[in-house]
């Protein structure tokens, strides 16, 4: 066994570059023309198709697959992008196994859905490779809209507003646009800098200016935005991370999974990125799986996801759980962290088994850990925000907040799943509502 793999502590270079690039290669790869035709041929062109209903952005899936089948992937892409301007990224990151493909009549009947996600990627990649942006702007309206957050919600909103002829300014706290497409999401789902390329492609519509490094509350205030612009859309996501309350949670090596994923996504040389030998990820969602799988791919010897409830309550889909298992990640359920042990740095983390209602059982166990990732949810941060619904911005209808002239969507807004595709739908629908409101005024 390679000594580098066994080395204790958080170190870089556990794997050689070939193993790293193989591990982080495109998870699905692109369908060839022939594969796409064969895959498209399986679509039954269902009437009032269940897959469309299951898609948060209502993409006309049977139509775009038929357009692929008839040799016009460009038309297919337009069908997709008309509903979902980030159809390229969604084709890569959507949990299709719990959305369109789950309800595909062939999944229900045969356990083998039409490969909707991969066909969507085939179409959108074909169009983007041609450098074609199939939308154009309406005549200028003279209206200016401020968008906070250049993630999927903000960019989808910006694009739709720009199409309607409005001028859009997008502010983002990070140095790059893209939000979680750029800083979240496992690297093997967005290879070859796809997130950044998609942003560039999206901006071809014109009329959108992005200003990076500007954060709401730090560099500008809500009231400034409201007075300077005709409308405001909040799509800044969830800036904070839930804290781990177990004793010892402040020890060295206990980190936020989102930070690790962001570092990994921005890293140009994965062999320089350190990872523990024994990694424990606390949580049960996509962030937990992304952190765990990528730890494994970086060369961590033992990677364990520990989730406090039962497997059926995990937010990560069964498909994601199986992906993690296939990569060698162990999943322990019904266990809550009770203490982090170690002298300065974490050495072990102690859990207690819990019932499904989280009642402690009194039985504990310890896992060796030199790195612990917290993936136990993110929180909204910021002052002077519109009224909240729980811990997120309350919205009614297409993203209307309690404040007139202010809309919200994406992860920072209440309701809907925290998915890229949901954020796109919310941004798009808010844009339509903003457009109607501004043109009526």
């Amino acid at each position, binding site marked *: 066994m390679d000594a580098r793999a066994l080395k204790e502590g958080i170190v870089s270079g556990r794997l050689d570059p070939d193993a790293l690039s193989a591990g982080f290669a495109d998870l699905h790869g692109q369908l060839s*023309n*022939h594969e796409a035709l064969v895959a498209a*041929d*399986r679509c039954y*062109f269902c*009437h009032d198709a269940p897959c469309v209903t299951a898609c948060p952005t209502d993409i006309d899936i*049977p*139509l775009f697959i*038929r*357009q692929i*089948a*008839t*040799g*016009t992937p*460009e*038309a297919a892409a*337009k*069908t997709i992008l008309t509903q979902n301007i980030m159809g390229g990224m969604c084709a890569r990151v959507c949990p299709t196994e719990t959305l369109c493909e789950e309800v595909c009549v062939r999944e229900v009947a045969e356990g083998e859905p039409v490969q909707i996600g991969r066909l969507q990627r085939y179409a959108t990649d074909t169009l983007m490779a041609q450098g074609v942006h199939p939308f154009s702007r309406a005549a200028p309206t003279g209206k200016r809209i401020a968008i906070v957050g250049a993630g999927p919600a903000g960019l989808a909103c910006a694009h739709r507003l720009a199409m309607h002829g409005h001028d859009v300014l997008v502010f983002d706290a990070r140095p790059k646009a893209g939000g979680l497409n750029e800083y979240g999401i496992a690297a093997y789902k967005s290879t070859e800098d796809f997130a950044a390329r998609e942003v560039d492609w999206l901006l071809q519509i014109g009329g959108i200016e992005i200003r990076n490094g500007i954060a709401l509350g730090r560099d500008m205030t809500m009231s400034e935005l409201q007075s300077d612009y005709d409308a405001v859309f909040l799509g800044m996501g969830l800036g904070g991370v839930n804290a781990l309350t177990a004793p010892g949670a402040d020890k060295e090596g206990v980190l936020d999974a989102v930070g690790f994923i962001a570092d990994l996504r921005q890293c140009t040389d994965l062999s320089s990125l350190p990872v523990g030998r024994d990694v424990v990820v606390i949580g049960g969602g996509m962030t937990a799986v992304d952190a765990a799988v990528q730890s494994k791919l970086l060369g961590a010897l033992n990677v364990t996801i520990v989730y406090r409830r039962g497997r059926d309550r995990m937010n990560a889909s069964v498909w994601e759980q199986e992906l993690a298992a296939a990569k060698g990640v162990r999943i322990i359920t019904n266990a809550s962290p009770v203490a982090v042990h170690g002298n300065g740095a974490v050495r072990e983390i102690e859990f207690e088994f819990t019932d499904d209602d989280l009642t402690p059982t009194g039985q504990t166990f310890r896992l060796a850990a030199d790195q612990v990732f917290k993936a136990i949810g993110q929180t909204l941060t910021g002052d002077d925000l519109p009224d909240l619904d729980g811990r997120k911005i309350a919205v009614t209808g297409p993203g209307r907040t309690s404040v007139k002239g202010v809309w919200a969507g994406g992860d920072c807004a209440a309701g809907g799943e925290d998915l890229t595709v949901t954020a796109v739908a919310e941004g798009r629908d808010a844009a339509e509502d903003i457009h109607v409101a501004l043109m009526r005024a």
Partner: protein
Amino acid sequence: MANLTTDFVGIKSPNPFWLASAPPTDKEYNVRRAFEAGWGGVVWKTLGEAGPPIVNVNGPRYGAIWGADRRLLGLNNIELITDRPLDVNLREIKAVKRDYPDRAMVVSLMVPCVEEAWKAILPLVEETGADGVELNFGCPHGMSERGMGSAVGQVPEYIEMVTRWVKQNTRMPCIVKLTPNITDIRKPAMAAHAGGADAVSLINTINSITSVDLDLFAPEPTIDGKGAHGGYCGPAVKPIALNMVAEIARTPEMADLPISGIGGVTTWKDAAEFMALGAGNVQVCTAAMTYGFKIVQEMISGLSQYMDEKGMTSTSELVRKAVPNVSDWQHLNLNYVTKARIDQDLCISCGRCFAACEDTSHQAIVMSEDRVFTVKDDECVACNLCVNVCPVEGCITMERLEVGAIDERTGRPVAAEHGDWTSHPNNPAVAQAAE
């Protein structure tokens, strides 16, 4: 985006995609939904003369041929013309046309072969505001037993006579729908032309038995142990229809006779092919019956994209574009010499090309012990069978030999000039002329 508006014998429609006279166009409810879905026009399901309504069988009306994944490839039917009262159909046609003035509304007709019958029905159709009539001389089942449908379409003299009656008794454009159940499609087309038809539409369905129930020993669809031949349509008939359309389009006397192309149009590409071979528009039935009205969206987007890519701004630029290239065998260039080429990087070593060539063609492919397949140029006649049986698209291609290159099969250099059968020394006519 390309402009798909078409003007067919003076009938304008926003696109060249019409629904053919068939069950999809049998009633107001369907046709309104078809127009909402985007269809450019319809030919209303064939009306018969006033009187007791048509009776249909009460067992299965359709039989089908499927591909492996149950993709419907061919459909056969024994349904007759509309079985709804004439006055109901007329009332509905009028109502729909009034609400969709921009769409083509053509009414299909089939009445007995007496002038009075046509004189009686034409004014009724005119009164609906319909854009034109289509004479159903095509249905091969049921009605033909009563001297209508294909029974008329198989006798050019009848076609000409009835067409003339129609032209004399209405101002509406008259499209004559032809049956393919004949030996030479040009004869009935010429008859329609001579009778004054504004256009022909083809093909109607082909006489067929889709299959036989090997337990009942009866043709399908089976009605109480018996079956009758039906009319075959769908993707399977397209090649037959394309040829018939082309034969009419390239006949000089009919060069100006508009054609409405019918027969297995399932995608935008099928439509483009019909149009390139001379069809001014297309009519669709089986594809709509299989997948619903919504497919017209793909047809519209696909044809638009294709025309954009070709720099065509109007469908008229596409219509007849391939007609000059439809030739006779005797004029094909015998000095165009090609050889099969197998791309070894794409080859998956299945050996189908070898089996086809070795067993059934010219023994022009060699198979090595480690399953590498190569073409023997001295045996290859360029028949293209290996290309057609190869499961990998683009793996085997036919490559043209350059002028001056030696064709290893004949040992002769490839000539630069065109040379066809009409000038070939083996042609007895050439030999005679030389004498």
